[in-house]
């Protein structure tokens, strides 16, 4: 519903992924008798579309619900409410068998390249697993495809016989990427794929992800906390805060002309590698409120330097400002 209007107002073809009103509320029981229930609103009703071939960046600080969103789209976590439509099919209601088949089309790259590879399997077995699960190749064909994939991600053939612990973090992330590519997916959900890597390795992997996108017509949902990385790789960006999307739009609009005070604060807090850079920092007061006890009204009002009475009482809706083309949820845009 949002993306359809973003590119010059012309209705585009059906999006590859549609997320509508997605919510995840965790119920945790507290106390010895487990009588007092606490509801943690990890994701509290978010909607966005991703067009085929684009990179959609989901950015936010820890605890904002971005990873939970990724896992709900992957159908590894059941949504409390809302729908996930992939390629025109509702993923949240399909049968187990159908879902298994559909999984071929969306794959995930994980943050931790150390923990996401089984230490007891060789690289060959790791990359071959999706091929075997989806019966895409058999016998010699599997080896062929594994070598092909290793080459694609820039690893030598002989890597196939080795175990994950013989590789550095960057190399392991390449193995994880090869595994995700094995089934020729349409969508790749990358959850903080470079945040565990050193800077010089991070740039290699980011470049690789861009190259792969061109080569295989991939669509990315790129989840990260690092705004400069998200800015580099994304076509469109959504900024999350406390389970809500507070701003969403084309990358350049969001980065160059942020509308939501939180986006502004986030951008101003990113350290710039230029000692002469002028910093007009918006320093946010205090910490992130607990998602089990979110503030009333606008979720950001407790830390917002511009908050007034209305923010405490009324939840702002995503809307377009006068001088911007992206959407942001802030009462200031009314005026």
């Amino acid at each position: 519903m949002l993306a359809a209007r973003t590119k010059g107002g012309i209705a585009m073809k059906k999006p590859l992924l549609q997320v509508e009103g997605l919510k995840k509320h965790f119920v945790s029981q507290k106390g010895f008798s487990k009588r007092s229930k606490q509801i943690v609103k990890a994701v509290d009703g978010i909607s966005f579309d991703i067009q085929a071939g684009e990179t959609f960046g989901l950015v936010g600080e820890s605890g904002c619900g971005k990873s939970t969103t990724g896992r709900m789209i992957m159908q590894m976590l059941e949504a409390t409410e809302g729908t996930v439509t992939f390629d025109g099919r509702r993923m949240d209601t399909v049968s187990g068998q159908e879902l298994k088949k559909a999984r071929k089309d969306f794959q995930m790259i994980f943050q931790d390249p150390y923990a996401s590879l089984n230490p007891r399997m060789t690289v060959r077995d790791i990359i071959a697993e999706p091929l075997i699960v989806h019966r895409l190749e058999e016998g010699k064909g599997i080896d062929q495809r594994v070598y092909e994939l290793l080459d694609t991600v820039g690893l030598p053939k002989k890597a196939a016989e080795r175990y994950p612990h013989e590789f550095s973090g960057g190399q392991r992330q390449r193995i994880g990427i090869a595994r995700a590519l094995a089934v020729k997916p349409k969508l790749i959900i990358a959850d903080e794929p470079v945040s565990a890597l050193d800077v010089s390795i991070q740039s290699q992997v980011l470049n690789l992800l861009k190259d792969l996108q061109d080569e295989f017509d991939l669509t990315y949902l790129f989840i990260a906390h690092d705004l400069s990385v998200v800015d580099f790789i994304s076509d469109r960006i959504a900024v999350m805060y406390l389970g809500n999307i507070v701003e969403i739009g084309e990358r350049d609009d969001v980065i160059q002309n942020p509308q939501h005070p939180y986006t502004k604060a986030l951008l101003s807090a990113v350290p710039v590698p230029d000692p002469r850079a002028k910093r007009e920092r918006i320093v946010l007061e205090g910490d992130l409120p607990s998602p089990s006890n979110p503030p009333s009204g606008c979720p950001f009002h407790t830390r917002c330097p511009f908050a007034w009475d209305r923010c405490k009482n009324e939840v702002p809706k995503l809307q377009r400002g006068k001088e911007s083309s992206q959407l942001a949820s802030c009462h200031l845009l009314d005026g």
Partner: protein
Amino acid sequence: MSNPILSINQMYTSFHVDGETIPAVEGIDLSLYPGEIVGLVGESGSGKSVTSLSVMQLLEGTPGKVTGGDILFENQNLLEMTDREKRKLRGNDISMIFQEPMTSLNPVIKIGKQLVEAIREHQSISKRGAEKHAVYMLDQVGIPRAEEIMKEYPHQLSGGMRQRVMIAMAMSCDPKLLIADEPTTALDVTIQAQILDVMRNMRDEHHTAILFITHDLGVIAEMCDRVAVMYAGRIVEQGTVYEIFENPKHPYTKGLLGSIPKIGSRAERLDSIKGQVPTAEDRPKGCKFANRCPFVYKHCWEEEPPLFDGENRCWLHEQKGESL
């Protein structure tokens, strides 16, 4: 300029594992002057954290040992001090903050008590006085409701709050030198910005020298006066923050700067350094960067470059004034 408060001269640190000696830091020189923030930047495996542990003399109980050189704090050699003298120095004149504050705070003791004990260990002051000072310090690092926080346990605080408590504890004795090892790496950017502000204020108000260790070049650019770039156990380049960021001389520094995405640059691709950081065992013979360097030539493989002009280790700068 006045005398350096800390000077590290030709320090070597190595680890002994299974009868093998693995060099971590191989001959670094670094000085810090009062009131100065010096950044030590490098990737994992560069030896930057080992350097900070060596200076703090915190390698005991690990297989690591400073095997050469000296570490002078106000002209006293830390390596020749007795344990008692070192303990007195740590916490009084030198403090340290780490990446994960939870591991440095005792989980079963209230914040206030830990602060008071830290203060009283190094100052003869009444319990009441120490409590007052603790509240003042918490206030100084921007902790709201300091009196209440004193009565809480570490797990009740957020990561950013805990790091502030650590800074308050580190600053409570008004140290002359603060060593901060990736103090904001585990924190969100908005919290990081707050903590960096606190640390800058500390320097401005107390004239504390800070050795700031991080992998984040953005943080370095914001915080530091001078920068030392570490690679494979050496300082490959050092200079003022402007020299390093605006006119880097070593190919590694250049590569590192090109690797980071800059907000709003709309770049299509990032520069990157090929290959991986070599492990301590398979560092190349000559220049340690030879296997990843785009400008490598024969000489680089044969002999390790010395520190030219006290600034950078690259054969391309053998003749003074030559630039890339």
